[in-house]
């Protein structure tokens, strides 16, 4: 589905979960990390585009917190989806960052480096065990010690496909591809059978696709990128075949997650990654498509699906750190994540929550089927996008991929250049 992906895509960049323990030690030491003391005072809590639909939830949440800690007062502000990074940049540069901020891993990394995010390993390490291991680690930054945000909600999802387009091409609509090889074969068949009319995918591969294909994205120290290895070149070469055969949408080179979602809704492409949220959306926006929707598992060569992570960060310069930490934990604790997950189809990042019957018991509807499958895959899911992979780097990769698909550069050349450019940006970011 377009929107959650867009919002997350703007946001999403998390740690390569595995190599994190191997980080070097340096680490800006921003302000005091002491969060002990009385929980009191007025704090500001900023969310990212959640007020319009979840106002009662947050008002109740805040009321409950203020009841538990009568000396506190929480002021809730919510920012729209667009321009969130600009807003945070201005606030960070101007010293007006709220005390508790809804962030994604890619926002946390530069804030942590600038000493604006509180190190929770020091200030709130006792809560670590309450969260899924991978989720806690997703707000750690290579090259720095510490964890810079509480994990909040997670999301992942299946691959949707359009059954009627499969049938049109003479493919078995009940046997969707389950491996990358099958995916590429299906795509080529679809393009061939429909004379290039029906494309299978609407978007070019992003960094998370490389990760899911099994390409090592960064070195262990987090100091250099490595997606130009043989595996990466292989993936890009396969995509090039698709592009030339018309199996990749003709507007793929300029596509955004939002536009590819629309392509799927109009039946211009046969497959699109999405999440549990999309089902309701399909039903509402394109009822005729909904009847033909097929659902299959996300394709991965590593055995781990991709997930998106949202976090809650505490401003290291907050004057009310005890209250801010207490509130950030309150928002993300297992009870409150669970009740939030029941309001909208996202998933809690707290340990054990995914074993709740809500996430394990099917009742025969598509919604629960998707939810149960996603919850199961989340236990081992990985946020492939490296925390340090900035917007500028995404553009470099995207443009390099386009050059390779257009045949202006060989896949190897294009990826070498992209790695070089991203490495340079990495050192320039300081």
């Amino acid at each position, binding site marked *: 589905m377009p929107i*959650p992906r867009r*919002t997350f895509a703007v946001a999403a960049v998390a740690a390569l979960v595995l190599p994190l323990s191997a980080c070097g030690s340096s680490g800006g030491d921003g302000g005091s990390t002491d969060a002990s003391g009385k929980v009191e005072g007025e704090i500001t809590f900023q969310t990212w585009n959640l007020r*319009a639909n979840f106002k009662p939830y947050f008002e109740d949440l805040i009321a409950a917190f203020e009841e538990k800690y009568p000396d506190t007062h929480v002021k809730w502000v919510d*920012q729209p989806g667009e321009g969130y990074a*600009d807003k945070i*940049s*201005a606030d960070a540069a101007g010293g007006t960052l709220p005390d508790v901020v809804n962030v994604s891993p890619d926002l946390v990394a530069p804030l942590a480096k600038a000493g604006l995010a509180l190190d929770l390993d020091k200030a709130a390490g006792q809560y670590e065990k309450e969260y899924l291991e991978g989720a806690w680690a997703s707000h750690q930054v290579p090259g720095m010690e510490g964890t810079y945000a509480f994990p909040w909600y997670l999301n992942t999802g299946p691959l949707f496909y359009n059954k009627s387009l499969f049938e049109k091409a003479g493919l078995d609509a009940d046997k969707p591809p389950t491996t990358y090889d099958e995916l590429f074969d299906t795509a080529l068949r679809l393009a061939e059978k429909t004379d290039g009319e029906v494309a299978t995918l609407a978007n070019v591969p992003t960094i998370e696709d490389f990760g899911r294909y099994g390409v090592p994205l960064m070195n262990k120290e987090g100091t250099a990128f490595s997606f130009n290895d043989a595996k990466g070149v292989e993936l890009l070469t396969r995509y090039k075949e698709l592009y030339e055969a018309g199996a990749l949408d003709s507007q793929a080179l300029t596509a955004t997650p939002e536009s590819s979602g629309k392509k799927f809704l109009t039946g211009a492409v046969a497959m699109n990654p999405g999440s549990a949220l999309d089902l309701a959306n399909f039903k509402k*926006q394109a009822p005729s498509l909904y009847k033909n929707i097929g659902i299959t598992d996300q394709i991965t060569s590593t055995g781990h699906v991709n997930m998106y992570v949202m976090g809650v960060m505490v401003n290291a310069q907050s004057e009310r750190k005890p209250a801010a930490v207490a509130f950030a934990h309150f928002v993300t604790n297992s009870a409150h994540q669970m009740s939030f997950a029941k309001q909208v*189809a996202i998933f809690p990042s707290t340990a054990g929550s995914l074993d709740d019957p809500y996430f394990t018991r099917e009742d025969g509807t598509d919604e629960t089927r998707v939810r149960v499958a996603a919850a199961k895959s989340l236990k081992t899911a990985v946020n492939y996008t490296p925390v340090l992979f900035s917007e500028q780097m995404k553009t470099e990769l995207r443009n390099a991929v386009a050059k390779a698909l257009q045949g202006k550069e060989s896949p190897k050349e294009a990826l070498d250049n992209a790695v070089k450019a991203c490495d340079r940006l990495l050192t320039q970011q300081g």
Partner: protein
Amino acid sequence: MSVAEKTGTAEKTGPAEKAPAPAREPRITDEHGRRVRVWELALRYLLLLAVLVLTVGPFLWQLSTSLKGPTEDIFSSPPKFLPADPTLHNYERVSETIPVWDYALNSLKVATANVVTNCVGSALAGYALARLRYRGRRAATLVFILAMLVPVEGIIIAQFTTMRELGLNNTLVGVLLPGCVSALNVLLMRNAFLNLPHEIEEAAYVDGANVWQRFWRIALPSVKGTLAVVAIFAFMGAWDDFLWPLIVLSDPSRFTLTIGLNYLHGTFANDERLVAAGTIIAVAPLIVLFACLQRYFFRGVGEGAVKG
């Protein structure tokens, strides 16, 4: 819209109707009171309709989307133009989802203030640049020209820092200030004053009118057309701006309409019908305002006719 239309037409066709010819059928006349030939008129309407399709077609489509009910497929291909079952429900939902009136009120405050400050500020400055002689006039003109050329994309954080130092972040005044006398408008007014014949003011000068009197009583009334243009631009600029108010404001109760409407793009799902309804809500006031003001663009001749 129709009221403005009627008065506009009545005013212009006035002289023709007073003409002795007691013609029964309505006579179509041009702005000089001459009769327009039928084929020419037909050609005009044809052209007008062609441009109309090009300019408002896309919005009609948006309007149509906003009227489509929940059971209707809005992503069908080829697209369907007319809602099968038109409903105003989406507009109701907009006002249920966000406090749209509060946001509109904030926008209205900023936009109205912006109109006042721009009209006053740029008329004064434009007059000084065009009609007064003093040392440094060229330098002052240059300041406005350079300001118009500054690429604003690069200065927004510096502007925010300035606002914060003034303690005006998170206030509507902070939203207003940077654009409250826009360089472009100053230059538009300067251009208008430059085009006025000098004889107009000369008579008043001889009569001993001072500079304020000449400005207020003679020069300003002659440029009402441009003043209306400035008013429209100022209102529109404040009404449509997104990034600057977003950066300056933190408190949702002070948000302007463009920020507020952005909430309709949900975090988890995008409802195109809701977004389309929001679009129409944002555009409608501007079109009404334009319809009300547009008569003034044609006033120039009549009022500027003081020329000697």
